[in-house]
């Protein structure tokens, strides 16, 4: 046995320090899962918001790693919402970022109607291009310098 007497000790000696080390090693998904196991719910949603923001901005959507992160984020947020955990702006941000991802995926598949349905009020910012959902409920692509972001 590892001689860990209670949950507090397990979290303090194993999960939380391991999560920090994983974060430092750029293993974001593992870090988030470990924080989740340790019951550090606020840290989980903060890390998710940061990581999802990064993957959305990444060229090509971040690849397989981003997909794993998003799948985990969906599961985690669903349960946090159900259990009322870590409410606040960070959790709302994670929900919105996941919707933005879904909309981007729908648009990439040529399903603009689905994209509009998922996030009808968002302005999706990419690195160089702004997709604007205008009053006619159609997506238009504008360069950042010309667009008015509201």
């Amino acid at each position, binding site marked *: *046995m*590892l*001689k*860990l*007497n*209670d*949950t507090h*000790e*397990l*979290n303090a*000696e*194993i*999960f939380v*320090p*391991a999560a920090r*080390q*994983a974060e430092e*090693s750029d*293993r974001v*998904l*593992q870090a988030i*899962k*470990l924080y*989740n*196991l*340790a*019951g550090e719910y606020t840290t989980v949603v903060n890390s998710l918001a940061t990581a999802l923001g990064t993957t959305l901005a990444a060229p090509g959507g971040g690849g397989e790693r981003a997909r*794993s992160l998003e799948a985990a984020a969906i*599961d*985690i947020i*669903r*349960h*946090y919402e*159900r*259990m009322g*955990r870590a409410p606040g702006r960070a959790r709302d941000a994670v929900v919105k970022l996941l919707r933005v991802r879904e909309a981007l995926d729908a648009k990439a598949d040529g399903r603009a109607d689905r994209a509009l349905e998922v996030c009808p009020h968002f302005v999706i910012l990419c690195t160089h291009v702004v997709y604007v959902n205008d009053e006619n409920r159609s997506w238009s692509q504008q360069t950042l310098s010309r667009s008015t972001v509201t």
Partner: protein
Amino acid sequence: MVLQAVAALGEHLETEIEAVHLAIALAYHGLLRAPSRAESSDITPRECRVDSTCCSVLNTLGLLVSLSSSIPPALSFSTLVWRYVRQFVRLDAKEALQYVHTVTLGADQPGSIGKEQLELAWDLVRRVIVLANAGPAWDELVGGFRADGMRFVCLFFCLVPARVLTENSPV
């Protein structure tokens, strides 16, 4: 002499596994003395030479510590185990964790050494968790929550009391 023999076996890649298993057996029977942090830090890498005249000995890989003739030699068990498991920790983290777990056999040593051995074991457990390859095997290693919020069994169930894990509520 036995610890020196184990340290000598541990120096060579082809006999490293025998050194690890011998050390585990010695630790199990309470015959392995691990060095305290103070003892380990008293020796700098510059002194890594066997010195038959003054008993200030640390073998070339830093496994064996013997500061004076009045203090029995000590084997850095955690270093020996880690040097062995780090070769396969990414691919077989479960087995690595089982080996790392044996470091806690030194937890009943007198004074602060026992507590230090425990802390070293926890440190190695964290290293295994961080270094292990991501994927289903990693989830199996640390445990997790299914989509329905139920926690699933992990290897930690073998290493910590079940009540410690069940206290953690699902997501």
